[in-house]
């Protein structure tokens, strides 16, 4: 089922890419493809059987896919060295702050509207 699964996944990415370009949307094709796939999976439950094994395989190694871009650090060493204080402080503080603020907000609002974790 490898070929049908890949064909379907790439088709959704392609459709997303075409819509993104044609309508000049700020959203990239793969994100639109993901939205399309969610809709399609709800409409055609059988689709999940074809796509799921390949999707799980890809998602299990999601972090591998970030390696090529990460190696780009060698091409940007000078800019980073020049602004390393601003970059490192801003990255670390803002990322951790966003996680804490987001997690507290979610927990607080969930309690407020009575949305429990396991119901």
């Amino acid at each position, binding site marked *: 089922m490898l070929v049908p699964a890949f064909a379907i996944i790439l088709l959704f990415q392609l459709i997303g890419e075409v819509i993104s370009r044609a309508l000049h949307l700020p959203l990239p094709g793969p994100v639109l493809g*993901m*939205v399309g*796939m*969610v809709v399609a999976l709800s409409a055609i439950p059988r689709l999940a059987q074809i796509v799921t094994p390949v999707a799980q395989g890809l998602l299990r190694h999601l972090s591998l896919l970030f390696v090529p871009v990460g190696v780009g650090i060698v091409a940007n060493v000078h800019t980073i060295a020049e602004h390393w204080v601003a970059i490192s402080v801003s990255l670390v503080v*803002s*990322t951790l702050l*966003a996680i804490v603020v987001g997690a507290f907000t*979610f927990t607080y609002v969930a309690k407020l509207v009575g949305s429990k974790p396991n119901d």
Partner: protein
Amino acid sequence: MTDAFQVWAYMAQQPLLWLCATLFAYWIGETLFLKSGRSPLVNSVVIAVALLAGLLMLTGTSYQTYFNGAQFVHFMLGPATVCLAIPLQANMLAIRKALVPIIVALFVGSLTAILSALGIAWMLGADHVLLATLAPKSATAPVAIGIAENLGGQATLTAVLVILTGLVGALFVTPMLNVLGITDWRARGFATGVAAHGIGTARAFQINDTAGVFASMGMGLNAILTAFLAPLIMQLF
């Protein structure tokens, strides 16, 4: 000796060598990660990037040449993003039940990420180009690159900052939220996905399935929201 050099000179320009090196570097990173008992301090991406960066510097290979080979791995980011639809759809019920906290936490988390990053960098003397490069750092790589280009930032540096953001999030999220006593896996996952995109999501899936699903949701939604918020917030600076 000259033969060996000729073979090297040829292979170093071919995609095969660097594609192979990328997979092996990640394999080494993943093995060390598993050997460490899945410690967040032993990150397979950091190890792979460090090994490859060292190899490129040692051999005097340019990033361009490396990327010719590694682009086949990079390409899979697109299909992998589409595949995030599967865990999302499978957990639609849980997501619908948490719709209000999801929407509120999305806006608060996304605003916090962009505003604090720009505010801190601005206070520390970053110029306009660097701010535009930093603004979309919490969005997933392909989206962030597009946003940075629109704002007048440096796309390749944005990609690196996005990866570093994800690593910082993945590294600290578990001990930090444990200390703060946040136990709802939905909240933990969602906030991580919003702030630390795919790398944070990958980390969330390693710890808890619910956290992973909510992290994918946070990542996908913040990719959309950052595209709208980053240009608006940039006007303040």
